[in-house]
């Protein structure tokens, strides 16, 4: 014999389960579209079997290749290479760069693919990792010299 309370318990638990399953399947289906996100090697070698077409809008995330940053002297235009594990992709951008933009730093750029390995970016965002530590410790552990983030932003 099921009491009214048990019935309510069952029906509400069922609603939660069904709704959760619905959202989970929806997210799974969306998974392929939610991020038009590529790494440099995915742009050149293809992601899940297809390479992005020239002219396509996309987001690219990778590490700024040390020594590849070239700034224009008369404007805010800048050009740099991004890399993950494979080939490099060049990003061309005109605008303000975030404080954390540095050589060797992971960044995300949104833009249009102009050639097989050149992206004209409209927005450049710096991504940082989840690690926080004091400068002395970083130097000891990773050999990273402390860089004052404000030093790179002297222009604004």
């Amino acid at each position: 014999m099921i009491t009214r309370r048990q019935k309510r318990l069952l029906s509400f638990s069922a609603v939660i389960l069904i709704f959760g399953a619905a959202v989970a399947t929806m997210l799974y289906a969306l998974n392929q579209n939610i991020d038009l996100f590529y790494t440099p090697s995915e742009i050149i070698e293809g992601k899940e079997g297809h390479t992005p077409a020239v002219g396509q809008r996309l987001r690219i995330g990778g590490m700024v290749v040390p020594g590849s940053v070239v700034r224009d002297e008369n404007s805010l235009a800048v050009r740099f290479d991004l890399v993950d594990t494979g080939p490099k992709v060049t990003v061309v951008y005109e605008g303000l760069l975030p404080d954390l933009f540095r050589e060797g730093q992971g960044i995300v750029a949104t833009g249009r693919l102009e050639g097989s390995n050149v992206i004209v970016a409209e927005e450049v965002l710096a991504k940082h990792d989840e690690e926080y530590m004091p400068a002395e410790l970083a130097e000891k552990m990773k050999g990273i010299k402390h860089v004052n983030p404000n030093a790179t932003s002297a222009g604004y």
Partner: protein
Amino acid sequence: MWKWLHPYAKTEEAYKLSQTLLPWFGISALIALVAGFAWGLLFAPADYQQGDSFRIIYIHVPSALMSMGAYSAMAIAAFIGLVWQIRPAFMTMIAIAPVGAVVTFVALFTGAAWGKPMWGTWWVWDARLTSELILLFLYLGVIALYKSFDDKQQAGKAAGVMAIVGVVNLPIIHFSVEWWNTLHQGATISKFAKPSIATEMLWPLLISLFGMAMYIGYVTLLRLQNEIIRREAHRPWVIALMREDKE
């Protein structure tokens, strides 16, 4: 088994219990928040990448984690209210909702203020940021739905269903940084592995986190007491209480 809980199904007992708990929550919130914020903002070392800007973590992370904690508490209260139809449960639910909404707003706001200098943008439609924004809308939806009914028992049921359905958003927020490529970095402390933050930076963070939880509990208890008094104003025990208070 549940016998010791039963008295608190009565509003009078719930009121008395919150009266007893209130000073404990208040005092520990005050001590922990002052200690945690002062330690974090003034004495903890600067980050090797972000310098002093990272200190906003001592407000951002406690409010972001607690926005989810408060939502789970609200959903549990709603579930108890719906299944066992205990009167103080819906009152607790609606007592938490605005507190949670404010904390969520603080998390979003401090996140934006942190994102502008570090990432280069106030806002991106990143999975973590978007799902946290949806959490704010869920809180506001629960409040709005509750206010739109004159019959408060009916209001509790409707808002309760919404609060419970919204629970699916919590794992989405938590795992968004793993499931998708987000601009937001991964979890620093809310994971099973060792926290990826230096010890002298971690302690003030944990203390602020505890303080934030206690503060939310404190404000919730105050709001719960107000809600009980407002709803039961005609009951003899409330009238007696008010007389007692005056003398």
